[in-house]
């Protein structure tokens, strides 16, 4: 009874193996197979194979990993050896039996001194072997041709990996078959035939060359597979991170990682230093200047607002001519505005002088404070038309502000044409003064490229 049960089980196993040969072969070739839970039809096939102890499964996120049982693997190994040559579609035995038959006739005719017939059978033996060699050469060329197709990352990496693995397997099969072929050809019975001996030597050299090129090719394929695996790992990490991020409460907060942030090298990057480019208002070097400018803006805003309030809300309860007050306040405001120094004109003039100096060969730039001192001391047009003159700090703020906003000058951003050095009150060197935030002067210099463009324009 027991024997009958086991026979029945075996029959069932063989039937299942036969029905699912393609799937089993696929698993055998790839060592394992991932089946997503959504592939219901495939899942039920796998279940049947599992019950027959042909495969075993392992639960994986979103599906199952399927592997062959040890017994099935051993069965497939035996089968694959036989199937290998069938897949290559050449029967080496037939080749050699044809060679043997031709050789027999050749021996007879050669011994009988019938040279013409002997030569005919010699040619036949040689042709059979040459045909076999050509077959190998064609197969090798075909594999090489297919592999030489440029693969990018434009298809699923897994597909590439499977394809490359099959190429590697095919190359190994070809190699094994070629080794069998040359091994048999080098056997004692053929070595003593002088023309086959010479032929065998020539073929060995050619097969050795094939082996070297195939080895190199396998090396390249394996490297490519390795790269694809790395890319798959990158994808896996990115996707897992994204899903994890999506589950985190907002705003995001990583308490453990934040506490250990000083172990993350890219976090040590510092905010931009606005020396010759890319200002960052939060940088400690300019933070105070920024704050000062902001304070000044707020002060002026408050002043103008309070002026408006006084007009609209008289302090005393006395009846006032509101319209007259408003007109008077407006006049005062306009007069104050009219008297204020023209910051834009000053900055433009300063920049023009920087450019002029650069054209005259003074590449070191122009100090903003030098410019301010000269202009204030001169009998400038500002005084003649009754304008206020800026304070040193006000002027400096204007220039720093211009740089901080990367103001457009002649259709180009400030930092595209100029560089700026900050000079601090107690450190004229500049570079060491990062910890002394009080800026006492700035030096604006024209960039070489901008100067060359200016020169070219002047020449034209």
């Amino acid at each position, binding site marked *: 009874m027991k024997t009958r049960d086991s026979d029945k089980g075996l029959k069932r196993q063989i039937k299942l193996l036969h029905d699912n040969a393609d799937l089993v072969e696929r698993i055998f070739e790839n060592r394992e197979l991932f089946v997503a839970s959504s592939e219901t039809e495939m899942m039920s096939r796998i279940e049947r194979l599992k019950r027959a102890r042909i495969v075993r499964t392992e639960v994986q996120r979103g599906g199952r990993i399927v592997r062959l049982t040890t017994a099935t693997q051993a069965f497939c190994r035996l089968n694959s050896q036989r199937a290998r040559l069938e897949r290559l579609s050449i029967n080496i035995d037939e080749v050699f039996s044809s060679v043997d038959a031709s050789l027999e006739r050749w021996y007879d005719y050669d011994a009988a001194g019938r040279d013409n017939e002997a030569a005919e059978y010699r040619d036949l033996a040689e042709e059979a072997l040459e045909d076999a060699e050509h077959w190998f050469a064609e197969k090798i060329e075909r594999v090489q041709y297919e592999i030489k197709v440029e693969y990018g990352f434009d298809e699923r990496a897994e597909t590439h990996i499977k394809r490359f693995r099959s190429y590697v397997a095919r190359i190994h099969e070809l190699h094994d078959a070629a080794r069998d072929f040359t091994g048999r050809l080098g056997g004692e019975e053929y070595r003593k035939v002088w023309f086959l001996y010479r032929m065998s030597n020539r073929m060995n050299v050619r097969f050795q060359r094939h082996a070297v090129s195939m080895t190199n090719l396998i*090396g390249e394929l394996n490297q490519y597979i390795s790269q694809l*695996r790395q*890319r*798959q790992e990158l994808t896996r990490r990115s996707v897992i991170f994204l899903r994890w991020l999506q589950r985190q409460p907002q705003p*995001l907060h990583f308490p453990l990682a934040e506490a250990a942030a*000083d172990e993350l090298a890219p976090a*040590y*990057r510092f905010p931009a230093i606005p020396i010759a480019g890319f200002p960052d208002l939060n940088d400690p070097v300019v933070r105070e200047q920024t704050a000062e400018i902001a304070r000044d803006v707020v002060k002026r805003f408050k002043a103008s607002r309070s002026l408006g309030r006084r007009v609209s809300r008289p302090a005393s309860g006395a009846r006032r001519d509101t319209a007259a007050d408003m007109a008077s306040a407006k006049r005062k405001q306009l007069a104050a505005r009219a008297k204020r120094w023209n910051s834009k004109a000053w900055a433009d003039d300063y920049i023009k002088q920087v450019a002029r100096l650069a054209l005259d060969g003074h590449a070191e730039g122009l100090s903003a404070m030098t410019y301010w001192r000269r202009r204030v001391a001169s009998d400038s047009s500002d005084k003649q038309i009754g304008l206020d003159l800026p304070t040193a700090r006000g002027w400096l703020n204007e220039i720093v502000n211009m740089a901080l906003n990367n103001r457009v000058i002649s259709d180009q951003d400030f930092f595209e044409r100029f560089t700026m050095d900050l000079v601090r009150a107690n450190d004229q060197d500049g570079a060491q003064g990062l910890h002394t935030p009080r800026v006492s002067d700035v030096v604006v210099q024209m960039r070489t490229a901008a100067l060359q463009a200016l020169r070219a324009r002047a020449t034209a």
Partner: protein
Amino acid sequence: MSTQTEVSGQYPELVETLLAGQAICRHSRPGLYRLLAQGDRVDRVDETSEQEEEAIDRRSDDRVAAEALLQSLGRRLAETDGVFYAVYERLDARASDAVRARFAEYTKQAPFIAEFFDILREAHRGGEALAPGDRFEFSRVNDAIMSSAELTERLIVTVSRVANFQNPNPEKVLRRAVEELLAEGYLVESSGNNQHYIVAGELALFDAFRDFVMSIEGVSLGDEAPAADGAGAPGATQASLLE
């Protein structure tokens, strides 16, 4: 270390880029990258002093000069996965504040960067994550996104994190996202006319942040990654074929 160096014409640009806190990689700034990547890195050589001296000597003059300048400012050159950038030399109170600020910035950017590059991954035919050096064409990605309602919606939601749109047109939204990534250094233009873009090394730095957060916060990666088969195989194969 000798300070007598002969810097090239690219030195000012190199220093400006480093001081501006920007990353230098082979894809975004190949010229500057060559200046930095030339020669062995000091912190990678063996510990024997002779070899270290030899390694220093092999650095380009531009790199030697840039490192000297950075040192005078309390900064140094760092490298992560082939991406160079300048960092604080030591972790004093000010640097510590900046490190926290930078980390907070990465945290703030994380949803946009992770989500957008995932959208690009799905829109890009490969289905694999993008890495520095990968290229994509705006119109192709746009077509792929437009052909999928799910991707279009994801794109609009994602980009809304960094920009406001009253009537979101997917193409404009995608363009806005690309502009954002160009400004942040994650992408560089391959050709302005044809709108081809290259993923820059800045993404490798974000990946370092991502891996750091995942490892410290204990984000489960499921099973261990499959072994990089083939990595060691070429040698073995060679032996088997030539025996």
